[in-house]
């Protein structure tokens, strides 16, 4: 019986301890960003809180790194990837789920096949295509691998398969053709899955590092991820500036996450879990 009272406290302690481990790196980033370089390189005494909260590192990296264009590039990259993925996947997903036509199964097996292959296999040929088109350092190059999505098609197919068949039959009896049935009846019903796919696509476009590193060499064309990677080499030991830049780069996405927490978690994890 003693256990009954002790266990909830113990559970809270364990969860709290892990929460601290999860938050500590973020906290340390924030604290460091407001320190001076000499505060970060002082061992005795070890400085935990900055003596005065200095914003100098923020203004320096903001000016040096041209964050306006980094935000703009990242936003455009996310926008185009989401538009392309959602618009192509919702049509294809519906066709695979609800229409019967010759060649469907073999085409769908290509979708499944793509999902099993590690994406690095595609990267060299994708880069060669971009390079042959003389399109490196363009927004098109950044969006290129995400023009269509096998995973998203699969996700949308699952969503449409879960909808009742009667609705389509009723719409057809009312004289809707296939396109109308899809646009007016079925697509709106699969909206939740489409939103999930959009969030999933957005977050992974934001996090992608290797492809932007490959196709963008000019810092004015880079998204945040590649720019952060490049700046690390230039500011190698100025940790207040490195942390300030990291904070500026992470803040918009984290702010969005805090507002739309439920949608984010469902979008990323639940879509991942539906495979």
């Amino acid at each position, binding site marked *: 019986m003693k256990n009954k009272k002790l266990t909830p406290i113990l559970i809270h302690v364990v969860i709290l301890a892990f929460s601290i481990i999860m938050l500590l790196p973020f906290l*340390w980033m924030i604290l460091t960003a407001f320190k001076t370089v000499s505060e970060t390189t002082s061992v005795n005494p070890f400085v935990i809180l900055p003596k005065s909260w200095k914003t100098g590192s923020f203004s320096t990296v903001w000016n040096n790194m041209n964050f306006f264009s980094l935000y703009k590039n990242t936003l455009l990259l996310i926008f185009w990837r989401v538009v392309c993925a959602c618009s192509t996947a919702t*049509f*294809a997903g519906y066709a695979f789920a609800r229409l019967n036509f010759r060649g469907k199964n073999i085409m769908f097996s290509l979708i499944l096949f793509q999902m099993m292959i590690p994406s690095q296999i595609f990267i*060299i040929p994708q880069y060669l295509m971009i390079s042959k088109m003389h399109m490196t350092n363009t927004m098109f190059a950044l969006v290129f691998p995400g023009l269509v999505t096998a995973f998203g098609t699969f996700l949308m197919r699952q969503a449409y398969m879960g909808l009742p068949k009667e609705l389509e039959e009723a719409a057809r009896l009312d004289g809707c053709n*296939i396109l109308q049935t899809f646009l007016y009846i079925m697509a709106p019903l699969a909206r939740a899955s489409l939103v999930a796919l959009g969030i999933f696509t957005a977050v992974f476009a934001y996090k992608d*590092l290797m492809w932007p590193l490959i196709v963008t060499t000019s810092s004015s064309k880079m998204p945040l991820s590649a720019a952060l*990677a490049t700046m690390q080499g230039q500011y190698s030991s100025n940790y207040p500036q490195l942390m300030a830049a990291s904070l500026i780069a992470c803040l918009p996405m984290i702010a969005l996450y805090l507002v739309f927490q439920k949608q984010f*978690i469902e979008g990323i994890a639940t879509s991942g879990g539906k495979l």
Partner: protein
Amino acid sequence: MNIEKKKAKKITSWQQKQLFWGWIFIFPTMLGLIVLNIIPIFTTIYQSFFKTGDFGKGNIFIGVENYKQMFQDAQVWQSLFNTLKYAVIEVPFSIVIALILAVLLNRKIKGRGVYRAIFFLPMVAAPAAIAMIWRWIYNSQFGLLNHIFGTHIKWISDPKIAWISIAVIGVWSILGYNMVLFLAGLQDIPRDYYEAAEIDGASGIATLLHITVPLLSPTIFFVLVTRVIGAFQVFDLIYMVMDTNNPALGKTQSLVFLFYQYAFTEGNKGYGSAIVMLLLAVIMLITVVQMVLQKKWVHYN
């Protein structure tokens, strides 16, 4: 007679409509998929039989030379071994800790949503930023970690421990994602099972091992398969945390990192292609083994 003909006509026209719209609907996706993914698979295989010429010289067909060279290349085997070591830490720890946290959070607990949001936070942060933060925490002279423990450990430049330090970042990054998947799976387990266990007087650990884990095994299996595939593709962390002059680089660089180095830093696309084919083979092999082994421990109702 006439009605049947009409009916037959109607059916064929309905089939034709489906054929027409079906192909229109899938056309953009299929075109993109074939150009961006299906053809590139063959291009990569093709490319792996060529030596990419230095200084703008064209491709030279060398047959299986890249593969021969790769199988004798100690660096490739070391990278494969490093990747394996990374996975051996990242996958089990991120799964076990996530499972425990999910079980603990799967009850009416104060601040449940807040905890879930905290654990999931690394999923929405840029990996480049996460890597920089951890690099700073690991800093051997001024880092937070050495200060807390009062040590002078070279967390990321000592070849003996750098791979563990990297894998710890991996565990920290993916923990919340696994936990959310487990939480979703736990919701599907009917309450009666736990009530029955309670009546029988089963302890918490016994309930976890004999009820939760078997009933959650399809989710655990899914997370395991996808995490292993993900761990074998580790790149961002190595690229960001390990400098090219880091003495521990050789003992930590992953297969995908090596692929990136050959294909894009050194411009040897042929050898890079061969390495990526090795990656494909390894991932396929491990996935098939897991599919076979699942029969032994995964319970589908």
